[in-house]
């Protein structure tokens, strides 16, 4: 199991992390090292074993349908990179 540079670019695109060509070799080396460490797991016989997503076997608690959050826009937008008229601004979204 070894990732090609194209695969690394594709994953990086999915994760929205720019990787320059200069960084590629080191990154790919590290990722492939980690993947080969993980690879031993494939030999484990897990037939019939239910995947375990949570540490505790519990079910979801439900909340009453009540509004308890107040408008804190000013607090929240004080720490925003760019806002105008109460909106968060980003480079133009093209649909």
């Amino acid at each position, binding site marked *: 199991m070894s990732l090609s540079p194209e*695969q690394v670019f594709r994953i990086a695109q999915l994760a929205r992390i720019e990787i320059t060509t200069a960084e590629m070799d080191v990154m790919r080396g*590290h990722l492939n090292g980690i993947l080969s460490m993980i690879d031993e797991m494939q030999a484990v016989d897990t037939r019939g*074993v239910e*995947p*375990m997503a949570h*540490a*505790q076997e519990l079910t979801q608690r439900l909340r009453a349908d009540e509004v308890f959050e107040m408008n804190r826009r000013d*607090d929240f937008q004080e720490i*925003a990179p760019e806002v105008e008229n109460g909106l968060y601004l980003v480079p133009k979204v093209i649909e």
Partner: protein
Amino acid sequence: MINASLSELSRALSAGHISSVELTQEFLRRIARLNPTLNAFITVDEEKSLAQARAADAALSAGTAGPLTGIPVAQKDLFCAKGWLTTCGSKILSNFVSPYDAAVVERLNEAGMVCLGKTNMDEFAMGSSNETSFYGPVRNPWDTGRVAGGSSGGSAAAVAARLAPVATGTDTGGSIRQPAAFSGLCGLKPSYGIVSRWGMVAFASSLDQAGPMARSARDCALLLNAMAGFDPRDSTSIERAPEDYCRELDAPAADPAKPLAGLRIGLPREFFDDTAPCDPQTSAAVAASIEELRRLGAQTIELSLPNVRHGISAYYVIAPAEASSNLSRFDGVRYGWRAPDYSNLEDMYCKTRAQGFGAEVKRRVLIGAYVLSHGYYDAFYLQAQRIRRLIAADFAAAFTQCDLLLGPTSPDIAFALGEKTDDPVQMYLTDIYTIAVNLAGLPGISIPCGFAQAGEKSLPIGLQLIGNYFSEARLLNAAHRYQQATDWHTRIPEGIE
């Protein structure tokens, strides 16, 4: 006062021998003096701390104080604290002043504790040496050429160097226990669901758990009393009656010479064989601690946890998968750092995240995206989750034969700065004994059990005890009885006076 236990501090504050303001100032002075060397804190805000200390003093004189009122605490920078810079050790949150408090912060504030500052950590808790922090590595107070461990390295160094009497940490794969071991402290990772994750910035949600880091088991128990409790804001928080984690510590033993009589300690073969070769001085110290526990009345049983050897693999699938998703919110839109130059929206995302995250975070985000991606999900993610269940089942079987499990916390003592930074896999292997505990969601504690000679320096060795779900009180009691019979936990690093 800097070496006093929490109980001693509490008595001194109640008796008026010292005020919270004086105590806080003393620790702030030590931080000012020693932090430039150790780099244990990312943020210190004297005015905020002193304001809390003044409020604590008012409560103390009004007679409304609790057992922790007025006692300073260092908060890991993973906990959101209202009005405090909360960076998680990352550039991407380098300007994030939290508009709200984490549950742990709220609870400690309500207990009247004084926040001394926010401690350094591996970026988003991803690391085992505190070298992935954007704010630079933490140095080990026992040897400043060595790492303090990670990811709660700042908290560990702060407590070890007496910059704080006690600190909070978080543990996803060993991030409380391993730095506790490297720094000569007592660190407890509670059962998953005991301490609320609300406001604790997520690394791997199904594994993350906050816990106390202190110089003794008793101090850990006292801090855990304040940290733990049901929180309806965290869907994974467990509804249980409140517990006093100190309750077993003071119970008189039938035979005072054998306070651990009746306790069955399991010794998993895999923690001692060549699955993970252990540093010889560590092996010797752990063997000696087993003897000590036997002297205290404990029985030992050899057993096996056959699937624990796959813990590292399963963990490095599950944790990065959850992390890759948890860290998607850091996109430079609503808060945090945004790249200065970009050509369009996509470019803004890619540059903000490329420049805002460090190398280790990027590696894990990419591994996580890969193992979840189309065509790989079953082979990686589901397989890892199945192994996770096998590991949990191993522990469940073990706990039918024994009350606690014992082994080294880490195969190594604190290593030199830079020693493992070029080889992520070598770094990951330092958590080989701690990781399985998080996968199963069990409580684990690391306590000092000896020292290793490394050249001129003497470095702490950690012993890990693992309990069944919700057995924190029993774990803390075993650690406490051991600490009453030994003095490893009372040693003080040289040069921090």
